[in-house]
């Protein structure tokens, strides 16, 4: 057990810090979602130009070949510097690794480069309105049509779809199939008729998610990833890459929130109230445990190649801590914190999504019970 960095990890961090010291992402644009995304894409271009995009990708694919710990350090340092996530984060974390695993030479050749630079943004078309948390209930239909496929259906919660050139799309190619069988994973070109993106407004008022309407969209055989009928396995590769490095970004962001709240409370004398101080300590402890548990998960993954129970738990910890933190902020800071558009009221509303996005709390607890604890499934 050693919670300090090894010399090579320290060297990696120091090199990154040095680069970040010279390369400021610039001021965060507020209020204009397109300007904000353009800022993130620009940031990714600069990262890529300096070799800091896809740090965890193998060197042969243009990455830096970073270890898992180095990748965690990368996201922590980004958050520490209050830099944004790269614009094409789904491409870097999900599409890229999935294409590396399942793609043929041509697919790798075609896609990996533009993912790294952010030249081509990716979105993820898995969820559907009727399926919700039940991924195997995918209904979007891809029908054989000459030498390609015609795709019809609807996806939802597709973040970045309105910026995306490509979509990781899960569709049913065997109409007689049920559940996990008969699904195929497509690399769908978003720039065509038959693909319509409609923003979905969140309770915060923003539109970070979209509905995706597919009405006769086309895909070629060359755009099938991992083979016809193999979509479930390919999708599982994508999902297992989800949240990997991001946990460390979130974890630092949570700590920044705790510190910001502590500072704001201290300034107003709020910490003189032992009730508030106690609640702050509770939340700070949750955030610290999140950090530690994320590191434990990382070590486990490095040692065994398999995510341990920790990876299922950090999401639960994070969402719970963030909801508690933001409610505390609103309680302790009073009506000022409830002003529309204020930092804490935004965080309060946004936090409600934490127990829904990326696997609802209910689904994650099912997973923990069945896959980690080995409890029997509900019949």
């Amino acid at each position, binding site marked *: 057990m050693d919670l300090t960095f090894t010399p090579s990890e320290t060297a990696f961090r120091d090199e990154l810090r040095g680069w970040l010291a010279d390369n400021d992402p610039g001021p965060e644009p507020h209020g204009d979602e397109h300007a904000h995304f353009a800022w993130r894409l620009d940031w990714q271009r600069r990262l890529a130009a300096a070799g800091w995009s896809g740090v965890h990708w193998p060197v042969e694919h243009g990455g830096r070949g970073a270890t898992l710990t180095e990748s965690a350090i990368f996201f922590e340092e980004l958050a520490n510097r209050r830099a944004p996530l790269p614009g094409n984060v789904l491409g870097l974390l999900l599409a890229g690794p999935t294409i590396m695993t399942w793609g043929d030479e041509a697919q790798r050749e075609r896609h990996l480069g533009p993912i790294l630079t952010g030249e081509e943004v990716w979105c993820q078309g898995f969820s559907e309105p009727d399926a919700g948390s039940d991924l195997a209930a995918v209904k979007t239909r891809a029908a054989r049509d000459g030498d390609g496929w015609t795709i019809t259906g609807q996806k939802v919660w597709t973040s970045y779809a309105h910026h995306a050139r490509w979509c990781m799309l899960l569709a049913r190619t065997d109409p007689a199939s049920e559940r996990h069988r008969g699904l195929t994973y497509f690399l769908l070109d978003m720039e065509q008729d038959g693909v319509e993106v409609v923003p979905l407004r969140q309770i915060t008022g923003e539109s970070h998610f979209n509905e995706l309407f597919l009405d006769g969209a086309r895909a070629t055989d060359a755009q099938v990833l991992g083979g016809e009928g193999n979509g479930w396995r390919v999708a599982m590769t994508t999902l297992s890459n989800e949240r990997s490095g991001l946990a460390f970004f979130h974890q630092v962001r949570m700590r920044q929130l705790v510190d910001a709240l502590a500072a704001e409370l201290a300034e107003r004398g709020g910490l003189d109230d032992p009730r508030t101080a106690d609640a702050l300590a509770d939340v700070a402890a949750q955030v610290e445990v999140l950090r530690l548990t994320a590191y434990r998960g990382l070590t486990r993954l490095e040692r065994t190649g398999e995510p341990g129970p920790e990876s299922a738990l950090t999401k639960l910890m994070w969402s719970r801590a963030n909801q508690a933190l933001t409610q505390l902020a609103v309680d302790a800071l009073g009506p000022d914190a409830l002003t529309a558009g204020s930092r804490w009221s935004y965080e309060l509303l946004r936090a409600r999504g934490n127990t829904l996005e990326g696997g609802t709390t*209910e689904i994650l607890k099912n997973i923990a019970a069945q896959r980690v604890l080995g409890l029997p499934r509900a019949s």
Partner: protein
Amino acid sequence: MNFDLSEDQREIKRTARDLLADRCPPERVRAVAEGGGPDGALAAELAELGWPGIAIPAEHDGLGLGAVEAAALLEELGYALAGAPLLATAAAAFAIEGAGSDAQRAEWLPRLAAGSATATLGIAHGDVAALVADAEGADAIVLVQDGRARLLTAAEAEVSPLETIDPTRRYARVGAPPGAGEPLPGDPAAAVDRAAALAAAELVGVCQRALDDTVAYVGERRQFGRPIGSFQAVAHRCSDMLLAAESARSAAYFAAWSADADPDGLPFAAALAHSVAATSAREATASAIQAHGGVGFTWEADVHWLYKRAQVASRLFGSVGAARERIAGAVAARG
């Protein structure tokens, strides 16, 4: 011993439920919220019906009913998230009736009852009330400060609109220079408690709406081949929401009854109602979002209005922490 609404009171509640279901469907609530409210047409219609004067004595042209009837009405206004300033007017009327002079009563209560004037009440610290409902456009604003109240006209008060996360109602910050307005001669404490009882009743309606909408949704919505309400995690969440709603209802009705019939018990009952209703409403509305799944996080699903109302309305007459302090004090004193 009879701890339930009377047939007459239930009739008031049913009438309000039906009327508001017609006038304030979700589309209307959304339109009001997105348009910055308030719902002038609705306010006018409710004034026609005499609702603003429900608890104003008949001698001042009100309906002369009690806080329990007002609570029944407020519960339905909360259920519908109606954009009419009845809570604010009722709170101010309580203060003018309870702590005002004869002249102040005669000047204001008939107009408030008729809806030709509106008023509101705010709790001020250092000449500023940080969160006041429906103060913009109010003809009279009662500011309660250190146990004393003063009545300000629109011209005398400094009203700064406050855009909160709850746009189903207008809120403002209200300040007034020392000495501005005219004092209410009496003690406004009971009026604030009565207002807190009604605010709690409104939150009961919010809880109930969150519960009803959720039960309807999870009974319909299917996943993994069955209605999601048949999953125990969802079903138990709904049971917890029921528990929250009924807890809030018990406490709010008790406070309303105390306002009418047990002045000595009112301070404790009002603090209880505030604490329990605020906690219940926050929990139940957060649960409603969660039980709606990803859809619950979208603007169009409308459950977020309930959550936002619960968050802001809980603070109208002080913090939950302050209410808890009063409860602890009362418990220690009776020991």
